[in-house]
C-alpha cells in the first residue's frame, strides 16, 4: 500500500508530484523526468488503479533518471566519469546498458558513441552562430572514442577526462522499463480479478510505447513532433503495438553562413551532421530499438531515408 504514497527516496530529484486527470473511461497521468513531459494514457482501470500505475511509472522513471543521469553526484555514471583511469565495477543493470551501447557502437561503425559527450563542450546548439574551429575539434576528439574504453563486464576503465553519457538511450530505456513494470502490475491485478481488460501508452516527449491496441481495437493516435515552424501543428502516428521513437533537431541547431548544423554530432569527425532531416520517427518492437534506429538514421545525414528503407521498418521523416 505504501506504493500509493511516494517516499522522498522515490523522488530524489524532487520533481512535482504526478498528476492524474480523466474519468472511468480514460485516464491521463503526467509527471516530469529527464527534462521531458512524461505522459501515461490508460484505459480500463478505476481511479485508484490508474493512480497506482502512474506512481509506479514515475517511481521507475525517477529511479532510472537518478541512477544514470550524468548530473547526479555519486551515481554510477559520476563514479565512472571521475575515476581518473581507475577501474570501476558496475552492477548488472549498468553492465547490460554498457553491453547494449557497445553493440550499438559496433552496429553503427562508431557513429553511435556514448563517450561523445565531450563534443558538447565546443558545440552550442542554442540557435547561435558559433562553430568550433579545427583545433578545438581535434583537441576535444582526443577525449572521444568508445574503443579507448576498456570494458570487460563487470569492470570498466577509461582514460582520464573522458566521459560517458547514457543521454542518448536513457529516455527510450525508461519507456521500455515502465512498460515492463506496468505490464507486470496489470498482470497482477488481472490475476486478482481486479481488472478485466486494460490498455496503456507510455509517452516520454515523443518516445513512446503501448501495451497493445485501444480497448475498442483501434490504434492509439499520438502526436510525436512539434514543428519549429508551426508550434501548434503536431504530426501524429498510429500505434497498435510496440513503440515509436523520434530523433530531431527542430529545437536544437546552429545556423552559420546559411548552413544549418544539426545537433547530431559525428563522433568520428567531431563535426555536426549536415543534411540530416529535421525529425525522424521510427516504429519498432520496443522503444530502445526504435530510438536507436532513428538516431542511427539521423547520423546517416542525407542517406537517412536509404538507411531506413534498408532496415525494413516503418518510419516517418520530416525534411
Amino acid at each position, binding site marked *: 500500500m505504501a506504493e500509493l*504514497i511516494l517516499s522522498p527516496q522515490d523522488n530524489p530529484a524532487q520533481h512535482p508530484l504526478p498528476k492524474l486527470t480523466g474519468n472511468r473511461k480514460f485516464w491521463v497521468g503526467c509527471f516530469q523526468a529527464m527534462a521531458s513531459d512524461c505522459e501515461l494514457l490508460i484505459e480500463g482501470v478505476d481511479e485508484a488503479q490508474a493512480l497506482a500505475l502512474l506512481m509506479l511509472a514515475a517511481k521507475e522513471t525517477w529511479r532510472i533518471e537518478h541512477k544514470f543521469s550524468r548530473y547526479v553526484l555519486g551515481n554510477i555514471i559520476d563514479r565512472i566519469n571521475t575515476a581518473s583511469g581507475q577501474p570501476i565495477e558496475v552492477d548488472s543493470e549498468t553492465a547490460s546498458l554498457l553491453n547494449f551501447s557497445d553493440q550499438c557502437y559496433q552496429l553503427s561503425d562508431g557513429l553511435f558513441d556514448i563517450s561523445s559527450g565531450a563534443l558538447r563542450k565546443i558545440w552550442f546548439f542554442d540557435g547561435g552562430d558559433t562553430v568550433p574551429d579545427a583545433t578545438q575539434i581535434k583537441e576535444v576528439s582526443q577525449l572521444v572514442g568508445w574503443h579507448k574504453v576498456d570494458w570487460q563486464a563487470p569492470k570498466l576503465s577509461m582514460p582520464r577526462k573522458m566521459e560517458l553519457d547514457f543521454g542518448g538511450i536513457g529516455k527510450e530505456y525508461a519507456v521500455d522499463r515502465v512498460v515492463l513494470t506496468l505490464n507486470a502490475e496489470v498482470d*497482477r491485478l488481472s490475476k486478482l480479478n481486479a481488472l478485466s481488460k486494460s490498455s496503456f501508452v507510455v509517452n516520454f516527449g515523443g518516445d513512446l510505447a503501448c501495451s497493445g491496441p485501444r480497448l475498442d481495437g483501434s490504434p492509439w493516435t499520438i502526436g510525436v513532433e512539434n514543428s519549429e515552424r508551426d508550434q501548434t501543428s503536431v504530426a501524429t502516428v498510429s500505434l497498435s503495438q510496440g513503440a515509436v521513437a523520434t530523433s530531431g533537431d527542430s529545437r536544437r541547431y546552429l545556423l552559420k553562413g546559411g548552413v544549418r548544423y544539426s545537433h547530431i554530432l559525428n563522433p568520428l569527425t567531431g563535426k555536426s551532421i549536415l543534411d540530416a532531416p529535421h525529425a525522424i520517427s521510427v516504429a519498432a518492437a520496443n522503444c530502445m530499438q526504435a530510438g536507436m534506429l532513428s538516431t542511427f538514421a539521423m547520423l546517416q545525414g542525407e542517406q537517412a531515408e536509404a538507411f531506413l528503407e*534498408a532496415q525494413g521498418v516503418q518510419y516517418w521523416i520530416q525534411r
Partner: protein
Amino acid sequence: MQLMKRKVSKSTVRPIKKIAPALAAASCSLLSVASDTSLARGEAGTWDFEAASLFYVETDDRVSAVEPVFSATRNFEDGEVLNLKAAYDVLTGASPNGATPSATPQTFTTPSGNSTYTTDAGDAPIDDTFKDTRVALSASWLAPINRDWEYNAAFYGSKEYDYLSLGTSGGIKRYLNNKNTALNAGLSFSFDTVEPEGDIPSALVEMAHKGSGDDFNATRIDSSDSKTIIDALFGVTQVINRNTIMQFNYSLSVSDGYLSDPFKILSVIEDTAGANFGGNLQDDNGNDIYLYEARPDSRIKHSLYWQTKYALANGDVIDGSYRFMLDDWGINSHTYDFRYRWQLGSSYLEPHLRYYLQSEADFYKRYITETEYNSGRPTLTEATADYRLGDLDGITVGLKYGHKLNNGHEFNMRVEYYLQSNSGDNGVGLLKDQDLYPDTKALIFQVGYSF
C-alpha cells in the same frame, strides 16, 4: 509540415548495412535483464544493516543508559523478510526507592541485604546501587501467503543479571481494496522471571534494618518469581488518498503473576500528635519504618491508537498520532505525538513533540499512614509509591537529522529532552516541607547509520 509516411520496400537495394535485427536482439537482451536497483534498500537478495547507539541521561545523577543496537534485515525474492536484532544496554545510576524525603537523614538496607545507604535530610531517597547490563536478541519473519494475505512470526529473548524475558508472537495481515486497506491481527506471549539478589521481599512487610538485629531473611519469601503477558492486537490501515494514510489499532494486554518491583518501598508516616508529627513512624529500635511495595497480581490494559501520515506535495511528511490507554489498576493515559519531516535535498530534519498525561493507579500512595500501617498489620493489601504509577505528565521535545549519502546509506542523529512532572498528596506536618514530587528530566541522544 512535410511529413511523409513510407512503407518498406524490401526489394530496395542499397549499400547500407541492415542492422535492425541485430538491434532488436540487443534491445531484447537488455530488457530481459531485471532492472537493478542496487542503490535502493529493501531489494531482494540483499542484507540491509542498521547500527545505532542510544544514550539516555537523567539529570541529578540518576539513571544513565547506553544502548547500542544492531539490526540486519534480509529481503527474499518472494517478499519474505527476515530481521535479526541484537541490543546491549548498560544502565548505571540511581533510582528513587519510593520513600519520602525527610527532615532527618534516612538509612536504607540495600535490596541484597548486604549493606546500607544513607540519604541526607531533605534529599529524595534514591538507591544508588543500581547497575545492570542487558542483552536482548530478537528474530522476526514476515512472508506473504498469497496476494492478499501475509503472516509474521517473531521470537524474543533478553537477559539481565536478575531478569530473564522470553517471548514469541505471531500475526496475520489481510489486504483488501487493491491493497488500499489492510487488516491485521496479532498475538504475543511473553514469560518473564525475576531473580533479584537478596530474593523477593514479602508484600507490605517492614524493611529489615541492617545491624539492628532485624532478620533480613524473614522479610523474604522466594528466590524468584515470574509473570506472563499476553497481548492481542487488531488493526486497520487505510489509504485515504494519494497523500494520506491512516491507522487504527486496538490492543489488549493481560499480565499475570509477580508484577511488583522488588526494589521499591514506601515510607510509613506518623499521624498522631507529637514532635515527630508528619515525620516517619519509628519502630521500637528507633528506626524509621518502610514497607516493601505490593501490586495486584494481574493487570488488564486496553489501548486505542490512531495515526495519520500526510505527505505534502514538496515531499515533507506530517505524522500525528494519539493513544488512549485504560487499565484495571485505575490508570488511564493519553499520548499525543507529532512529527514533521522536513525534506532538505538528501537530508531531512524532523522536529518531534510528544505529550503524555497519566492518572494514578488506585493503589498508588506517596506514603502509608500510621493508621493504614496498623502496627504491622496493614489495612491495605496493595500499595506502591513508584512515581511511574502516579499522576504525571511528560513532555518530550526532540529533533532528528538524517542525511542520505550518495551510496544509499543513511546517517541520522536524534536529540530529545524529556521533562516529567508528578503531582499528588502533599503530606501532613513536617512532610509538607519536603518536595515529594521532584521532576524527572532526561536527555536522549541517538546516532544511527543504515547501510
